[in-house]
């Protein structure tokens, strides 16, 4: 059997592919964070809870209203995005003039409260959510058995990331957004309603987290802690990519997924730490992040 660094080649390819799949989640989550930070200057620590709410909303639509996965994919980002809009209007909008730390503390607290409420209501052990029948089964790739659903997650994440990048970099709306980031009063003077744009941007970032939650529901157990475990890594991704950089969060998201996958082959015990080691190195060598502007 062919071996690379003492690891059978099929296993290595398999792990690379899995890394890509996990990277898809990291990219999707960090994209939402980057969009929110880029425009609002808010470090959104509620993101993990909003990801979890997305998964729970998908479960509720199925169990309570009989609406399947595809409906959830459309409705959940709208519903959870709307809760984000309410949160921004009621609370976050009051903090823009203050230091970053206030936004961080507020969103962190709100995240803990949401998680606590879901734990009280649904318990901690999680709820089952089945893979939609259209995406069940697996392809035999020769070197590994590839579940169709995981392939779908990668494709969906890539499409979403690309669409978001195009929206922000190539459209008129995106140009307004970027301009407002640079100089909000000037953009407002041109007749653009900046506060409303800011609110909708937050809602959009939250909707991205919610879609991530729907995509994750059939793979992981739907439970109140599911976002907490992910959010810490995702923050490291954003820091490595450069706070607020769209392309940075996409590339680092996929890249770190692959690095983590390889660590799981060579030294499983370190797999949870490797992302943070890279983060420390990047912070020392390039404090603004790989794609950030100092």
């Amino acid at each position, binding site marked *: 059997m062919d071996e690379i660094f003492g690891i*059978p080649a*099929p*296993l290595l390819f*398999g*792990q690379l592919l*899995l*890394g890509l*799949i*996990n990277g898809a989640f990291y990219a999707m989550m960090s994209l939402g964070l980057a969009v929110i930070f880029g425009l609002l200057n808010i470090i959104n620590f509620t993101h993990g809870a909003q990801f979890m709410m997305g998964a729970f909303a998908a479960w509720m639509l199925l169990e309570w209203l009989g609406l399947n996965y595809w409906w959830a994919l459309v409705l959940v980002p709208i519903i959870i995005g709307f809760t984000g809009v309410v949160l921004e209007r009621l609370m976050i909008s009051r903090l823009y003039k203050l230091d970053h730390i206030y936004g961080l503390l507020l969103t962190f607290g709100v995240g803990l409260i949401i998680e*606590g409420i879901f*734990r009280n209501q649904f*318990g*901690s*052990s*999680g*709820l*089952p959510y*089945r*893979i939609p029948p259209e995406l069940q089964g*697996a392809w035999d790739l020769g070197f*590994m*058995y590839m*579940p169709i*659903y*995981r392939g779908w997650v990668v494709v969906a994440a890539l499409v979403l990331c690309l669409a978001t990048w195009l929206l922000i970099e190539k459209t008129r709306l995106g140009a307004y957004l970027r301009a407002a980031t640079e100089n909000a009063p000037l953009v407002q003077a041109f007749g653009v309603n900046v506060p409303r744009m800011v609110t909708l941007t937050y809602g959009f970032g939250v909707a991205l987290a919610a879609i991530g939650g729907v995509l994750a529901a059939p*793979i*992981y*157990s739907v*439970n109140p*802690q*599911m976002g907490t*475990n*992910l959010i*810490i890594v995702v923050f490291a991704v954003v820091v490595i990519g450069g706070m607020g950089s769209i392309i940075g969060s996409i590339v680092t998201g996929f890249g770190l997924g692959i690095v983590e*996958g390889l660590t*799981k*082959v060579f030294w*499983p*015990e370190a*797999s*949870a*730490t490797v992302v943070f080691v890279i983060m420390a190195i990047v912070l020392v060598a390039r404090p603004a992040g790989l794609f950030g502007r100092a």
Partner: protein
Amino acid sequence: MAIQRRDLLAAGAAAATASLAGPRSARAQAANTIRIGVISDMSGPYRDTTGPGSVVLTQQAVQDFGARGFAVEVLQADHQNRPDVGANIARQWFDQGVDAVVDLPTSSVALAVNQIAREKNKVHLNSGAATSDLTGPQCSPNTVHWTYDTYMLAKSTGAAIVKQGGNSWYFITADYAFGHALERDTSNFVRAQGGRIVGSARYPFPATTDFSAFLLQAQSSRAKVLGFANASTDTVNCIKGAREFGLHRQMKLAALLMGVVDIKSLGLESGQGLLLTEAFYWDLNERTRALTQRVRAKNQDRPPAMVPAGCYGAVLHYLKAVADMGVAAARASGVDAVGRMKAMPCDDDAFGPGTIRADGRKIHPGYLFEVKAPGASTNPWDLYKLVATTPGDEAFRPLAEGQCPLVRS
């Protein structure tokens, strides 16, 4: 105004008298009251398998025990799965006159509280913790380990799978004390039966949510059995992943610690065919069904899980011992109370007849179950089919092998 002020003064005086009288009357009452504190995971990953359910079943034990000339008070607290928090609560409660602590899931917390109960000469009735060290090197004359332990799980599930031809094993293990103990105990049984261990992947706990990389490694090991030395959500995510990647077609999946709540969360579709071991299942016999009937409405309309059922059995037996020896004597010495528990034969609706050994190990049968297919399940909690019963005297580690100092002396 003056009248109002006078009223206020009078009210203040009354309140002061009341607060003076308060503790005195509580103390007078306390002499004839047994206070039992449930310390459990009320907010973390083990909440659904222990926590509030353990409180409900403890209260049920008090109710079923009935009025026999002394009062019983039940308190509850959340240890957050942290040994320091658990130890602080236990210390404070013992100083405030709590006589026994119950449940204590999470092995690290249980071992910490074990020391304090001994130091303060109180009673530690453990149902939730898995580590077999509680009746081994760390055994205590103040402790009864009631429900299950890593040795029992490993022996029942591990041996059954080797017998079915699963003679080569790969483990996915939570990288902390509990996972290591479960892997070690299971490996010993597999080797003793002539099987071999191909390898293991130890994943960071609790920071891991995606297990696919470890599953792929397990697959490439070409072992016949994949053992999960972990618990709760991690096990559920592992099994979901194993099905997704088609591992169940090549390997036998062995969940070494799993209960009804986990199976419910996994769903029968993914869980069918799994072998697992429990000491209690609500639908086991007439008595377990009768107990379930009594508590179901109070327990969020769910049948009791294994660990809460253990709290029921342990508390009921403790109260019988208190009644037998008298409240004053039981409160005076935890060692004496546990000694009386060991001297009396046990019998309750959850576990049936049994005994408590010198090392504190409660002895009752272990049951090997197979998870039903969705078509074979007749109601939402009809989850298991009984495969084998290990009698009490074979289910747990032999007394002489445990290295418990109480036994040697």
